[in-house]
């Protein structure tokens, strides 16, 4: 099969997975009631009301409900790249050569009554790729050579070559109204107060913002789906103290909290009317071993350290079971993961044997300082747990807690032995940036200074894959290589928890990294 044919097959497979028609939101329950205000508790405030300027996940999750994407990602990422339900676009199709993706926009209007046009999509792409705007997600648009309006309601994305995530990359990012956002030059976007923009396409609009205290959203009367949203509005109460928020959930003042600590899960779920919804968080935590410092440059030593860490005990004791042991950087809920690759087992005897063969033992213990970021209580506890576990094989770990930016600076400068960190996915993981030998310090994110020609070759092969099945094979090769080399000890994939109070109904969390994806289907029982 040629590359073009493969791309076409992949595109058709993905497109057919969602098809054309109505949004993928949950079906309307018979008893759903209209009206009411949902009160959401949050520990952090929004920072900016423009997705391309905002730096906070929580703000972006709200902005996604105000400025719609062309399609809504579905939660079916386990067996293939995510499919998309129509959203601002009603349909899409690939050209015969598989390099042009054309979206047909639905007959939607902005909240001020102006029709949503293809020119808005073109304008948004210009913003996404503007160096002045400096959108951190801009890498999703790297392979898009051009975006142009075919007519008022059709817009074409032209790619430089076919690859598995073409649809996802084209859809990434909310479409902005050019007639509002275009009034501000890109060079001024990062110093502009967007809270007054006021015009959106989603089910909700920003009604008011009291920084540090409260965000109020109101139903968009011109939202294209006539029977949604059910709610009149949403109020996000910003209270940095999670204990206070949980008390408010129990007393009925707050209806929903995202990010409840696993330690509180049992207590909250024991309360009548409170429901806990765990969901996959696109993130893994790891111990990074500094390969620039012997003996951590030796893959066998790193493997021995992994064997000596009882990661299942960490998941059970510190995550209270809300997570799973990591086999590698490819999340188990993500289609590139190789289900046949099992995490290294907990085997302290084998670890001891390897370390003894390397000259380490009771008479010559291996001493490691292990850093982690202050304020992350789970990681602080993990560091202590690892200290206990490695002590059993004669490795002396000294945990050291430092402020996040100090940790980042120390790791980027290679001034550490080991550190506990985490990587968050944003659609896809930049394996080249994290494990490629060209990304070693200074400057790159491969701060563990891992270098393997074989891994580099496999990552390049992944970059050249034109369809997702080929990519999956390439991903598996990388995963096995990293499994053998253990540049990191891949610790765990922690689940995130949403707590829902008795008033809120219809809460469904089925899209990783987007707990509010079904916000328009939530209703209040009265």
């Amino acid at each position, binding site marked *: 099969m040629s590359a073009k044919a493969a791309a076409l097959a992949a595109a058709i497979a993905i497109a057919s997975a969602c098809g054309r028609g109505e949004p993928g939101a949950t079906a309307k329950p018979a008893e759903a009631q209209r009206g009411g205000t949902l009160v959401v508790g949050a520990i952090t405030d929004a920072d900016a009301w423009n997705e391309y300027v905002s730096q906070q996940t929580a703000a972006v999750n709200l902005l996604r409900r105000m400025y719609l994407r062309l399609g809504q990602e579905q939660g079916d990422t386990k067996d293939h790249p995510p499919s998309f339900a129509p959203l601002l676009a009603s349909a899409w199709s690939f050209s015969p050569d598989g390099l042009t993706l054309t979206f047909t926009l639905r007959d939607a209007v902005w909240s001020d009554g102006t029709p949503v046009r293809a020119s808005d999509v073109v304008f948004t792409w210009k913003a996404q790729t503007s160096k002045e705007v400096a959108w951190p997600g801009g*890498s999703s648009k790297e392979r898009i050579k051009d975006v142009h309006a075919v007519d008022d309601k059709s817009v074409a994305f032209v790619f430089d070559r076919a690859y598995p995530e073409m649809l996802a990359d084209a859809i990434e990012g909310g479409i902005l109204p050019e007639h509002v956002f275009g009034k501000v030059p890109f060079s001024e976007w990062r110093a502009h107060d967007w809270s007054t923009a006021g015009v959106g396409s989603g089910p909700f609009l920003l009604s008011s913002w009291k920084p540090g205290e*409260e965000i109020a959203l109101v139903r968009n009367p011109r939202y294209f789906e006539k029977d949604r949203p059910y709610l009149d509005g949403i109020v996000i109460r910003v209270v940095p103290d999670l204990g206070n928020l949980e008390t408010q959930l129990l007393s009925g003042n707050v209806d929903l909290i995202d990010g409840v600590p696993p330690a509180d899960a049992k207590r909250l779920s024991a309360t009548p009317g409170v429901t806990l919804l765990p969901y996959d968080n696109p993130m893994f935590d790891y111990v990074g071993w500094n390969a620039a410092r012997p003996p951590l440059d030796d893959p066998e030593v790193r493997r021995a350290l992994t064997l000596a860490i009882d990661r299942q005990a960490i998941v059970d004791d510190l995550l209270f079971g809300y997570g799973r042991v990591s086999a590698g950087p490819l999340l188990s809920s993500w289609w590139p993961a190789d289900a046949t690759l099992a995490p290294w087992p907990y085997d302290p005897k084998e670890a001891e044997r390897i370390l003894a063969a390397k000259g380490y033992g009771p008479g010559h213990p291996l001493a490691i300082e292990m850093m982690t970021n202050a304020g992350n209580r789970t990681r602080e506890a993990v560091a202590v747990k690892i200290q206990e576990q490695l002590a059993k094989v004669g490795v002396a770990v000294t945990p050291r807690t430092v402020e996040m*930016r*100090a940790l*980042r600076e120390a790791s980027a400068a290679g001034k550490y032995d080991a550190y506990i*960190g985490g990587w968050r996915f944003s659609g896809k993981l930049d394996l080249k940036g994290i494990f490629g030998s060209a990304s070693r310090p200074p400057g790159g994110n491969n701060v563990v200074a891992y270098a393997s020609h074989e891994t580099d070759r496999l990552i390049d092969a992944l970059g050249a894959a034109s369809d997702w099945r080929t990519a999956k094979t390439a991903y598996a090769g990388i995963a096995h290589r990293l499994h053998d080399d253990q540049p990191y000890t891949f610790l765990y994939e922690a689940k995130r928890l949403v707590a829902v109070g008795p008033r809120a109904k219809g809460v469904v969390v089925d899209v990783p990294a987007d707990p509010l994806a079904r916000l328009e289907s939530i209703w209040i029982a009265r």
Partner: protein
Amino acid sequence: MRRAVAGALLAAAVLTLTFVLVEAAPGSPADLIAGERPLSPEVRARLDAAYGLDRPPLSRYAAWLLGAARGDLGWSISRGRPVTAVLSAALPPTLLLSGLALSIQLGLGLALAVLHVVRPRGAFDHAAGVFGLSLASIPTFWLALMAILALSYRVPLFPPSSSRSIGSEGWPLAVRALDALWHAALPAAVLGVGAAAAFARYVRAGLLRALGEGFVRAARARGASSRALVTRHALRATLPPMVTLAGVSLPALVSGSLVVEVVFGWPGMGRLAYDAVIARDVPVVLATVLVGTALVVVGSLAADLGLAWADPRARGAVAEAP
């Protein structure tokens, strides 16, 4: 005039020191933006350029000072608004909370001290002493959480967070004012009650000292009652140090209380300054320091003027003060 020059020099020194310290701390706002996403060096460089962080520190500091002289305190990266807007949003809730807390501190502290002294070494004196010491010893965050648990959850008398009710924008002004007071009551009580205990001991010591003075003994010889001795004579003598204390409390009044603001979700200056330091939001850090420094100067001036009003003997000294 000399005070104004001294104040300006003090502000310049404090601001410069703050800027140097913030610059010397590791990390940059790009780290905040990256979070735990692997950002490429190119994107980091673009972000630095977009916020002007690629310019030398001295140039950025000079630009901020020039802007501040024109009333432009810069742009808050972490809050997506001009710093003046951020400050003006945080100041009123802080003034309300701190003003109320100070009223509780002064009122309750004074009352406790007077009761202490009117019946010294009695049951009340001992009980109040133990109670006051206990309150002063309890960590504020714990007191705040217990207050929420008791008075917002078990017996829901007060709101557990925020400075206003949901949907209060459309309410009449008087109702909104009452709503704000209702929301401020619990956090202000937590702040004020703990401070009142310490203040009461301070005033009590002053009162006991004044009661031993000759003019009080003379009043007693003239037949003044115990209550009159305390309230009319001794209390007046303790007024000057109390005025000084209130004056120097002014900066703390506006800088807010981080712990109470965090626990109660109160949108004040303490949280603003703390968040800005964490986010390396230099313009906000500098602006909060500028406000704090200005208030130290104004507060000490107010204390001197208040002292001159309360104690005629101090008038000459104040006039001669630099």
